């Protein structure tokens, strides 16, 4: 099979019920039959053949269209998540060898890159079959990384779809929904399930209020709905949750504790509830459907589907064909060890016959699915002339899983500790994203050090 025959568009065209399936956006619903056989890029689609294309769209729907259009045509697609800052674009373009840009709304930052531009139109034109790409298209995604230049990984469609089971013909049509953005790994998995699993999908746009999204999910009859435990806790707090009655709901991206699993079971008694483990680097790992937190220890050291798992030095390592091929950044460390295992950095602990996630190695804090590197925050605090040392750590939280707190050692005893604390926190607010600003800051006489003279971090 040539790359063009295995492309997303070709697979979509060969699938069933295209006239009945749709992508639902807040003010627009597109029939998959219309998307599969036409182009919103017009004649420019041909010009993008073989190129490395940056997909920088304001709307989620436009990003989905760009993926369908460019897979099998472009050499590489670089999928920008909505929270990627404009300032990062020149670095991304240089690192990923971008030589064209697909967008929906022109912005000064896009125009300043000085590259050929291909706007996605609001209407479709008949498809003039472009020259097929010689090799399968590379899908470049951003990791949910923490500091410095954004880290990118290369995936191939075959690996991205490795965990997707072929559709059961004649089964009830599925309507997928997710609280993730489809430009992140967790959300893209759901888009691909809808497209290849012969379903429809309700897409959310950045900034859409949860009550509006739940209303639309309900109106379109969502059957399969996914998000992080923090997303689901918000659903449990929303009166609009009564709008939905999914047959299956899934949690991923953070530790699913027994509390949130039980609360969802009580709120949606008819739904099957699963929690899944995946990462942008390692791909989809496994899924647990017994309603209990953690996962069976028997999954490790054996073969779980096509995924092999090991626990080495307390962290979970995965090996499968679903992983990313490599990092794009030339200075990034190797993606796998010598045996092809990806170290997830997620620490596990055995309790009885189950393994439980207990946090991230290196003290990385997961605040509602956003990973936070303590060193980045410590650097900001340490810039204050009154500070000698700072230790940033996570504190368990029932709403976001964890929040950020800081212990600070002062250089000299302060006359006015409250004023000093306010100054430090105001510097953090100025230099850091809101979820990285310590929610608690206390002054301590000293910080524990390791024998090697490093700050002692729990779990490090």
């Amino acid at each position, binding site marked *: 099979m040539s790359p063009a025959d295995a492309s997303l568009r070709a697979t979509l065209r060969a699938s069933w019920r295209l006239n009945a399936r749709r992508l639902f956006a807040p003010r627009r619903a597109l029939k998959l039959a219309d998307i599969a056989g036409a182009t919103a890029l017009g004649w420019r689609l041909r010009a993008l053949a073989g190129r490395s294309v940056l997909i920088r769209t304001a709307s989620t729907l436009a990003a989905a269209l760009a993926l369908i259009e460019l897979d099998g045509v472009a050499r590489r697609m670089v999928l920008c998540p909505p929270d990627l800052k404009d300032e990062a674009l020149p670095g991304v373009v240089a690192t990923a060898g971008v030589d064209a840009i697909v967008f929906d709304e022109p912005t000064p930052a896009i125009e300043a890159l000085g590259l050929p531009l291909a706007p996605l139109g609001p209407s479709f034109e008949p498809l003039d079959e472009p020259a097929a790409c010689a090799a399968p298209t590379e899908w470049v995604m951003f990791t949910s990384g923490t500091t410095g230049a954004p880290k990118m990984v290369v995936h191939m469609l075959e690996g991205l779809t490795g965990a997707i089971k072929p559709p059961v013909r004649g089964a009830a049509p599925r309507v997928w929904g997710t609280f993730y953005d489809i430009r992140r790994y967790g959300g893209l998995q759901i888009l691909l399930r809808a497209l290849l699993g012969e379903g429809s999908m309700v897409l959310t746009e950045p900034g859409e209020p949860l009550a509006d999204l739940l209303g639309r999910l309900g109106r379109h009859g969502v059957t399969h709905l996914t998000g992080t435990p923090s997303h689901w*806790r918000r659903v449990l707090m929303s009166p609009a949750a009564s709008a939905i009655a999914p047959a299956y709901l899934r949690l991923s991206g953070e530790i699913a504790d027994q*509390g949130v699993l039980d609360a969802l079971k009580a709120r949606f008694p008819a739904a099957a509830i699963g929690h899944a483990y995946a990462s942008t680097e390692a791909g989809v790992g496994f899924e647990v459907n017994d309603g209990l937190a953690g996962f069976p220890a028997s999954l490790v050291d054996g073969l779980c589907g096509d995924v092999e798992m090991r626990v080495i030095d307390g962290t979970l390592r995965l090996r499968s064909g679903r992983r990313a091929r490599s990092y794009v950044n030339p200075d990034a460390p190797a993606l796998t060890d010598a045996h092809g295992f990806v170290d997830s950095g997620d620490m596990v602990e055995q309790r009885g016959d189950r393994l439980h996630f207990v946090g991230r190695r290196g003290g990385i804090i997961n605040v509602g699915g956003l990973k936070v590197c303590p060193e980045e925050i410590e650097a900001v605090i340490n810039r204050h002339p009154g500070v000698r040392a700072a230790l940033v750590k996570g504190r368990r939280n*029932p709403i976001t899983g964890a929040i950020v707190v800081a212990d600070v050692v002062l250089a000299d005893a302060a006359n006015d500790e409250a004023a000093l604390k306010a100054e430090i926190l105001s510097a953090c607010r100025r230099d850091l994203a809101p979820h990285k600003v310590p*929610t608690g800051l206390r002054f301590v006489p000293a910080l524990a050090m390791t024998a090697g003279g490093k700050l002692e971090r729990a779990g490090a």
Partner: protein
Amino acid sequence: MTVRPAILAKFKDVAASQEKTLAPLTDDLVLLESGLDSLCFAIIVATLEDDLGFDPFSAADDVYFPVTLGDFVNFYETAALENVAS
């Protein structure tokens, strides 16, 4: 300080420090429509634990998620009584 005024003051403090516009605090206010996001609620629960000495979310056997401000205050007031009783 009793629980209700402590909670209302905390909502206002956190809204101000996170630069959010807070809706009028009535018992039937839906928390997700109060103008506060998840991070704000996370901070409210954590700092209330520091001030009051308990966190009813983590203490409860059954996990409960309040929908309105009235539910939230009740949840804390009930937990405060149990805290005194135990």
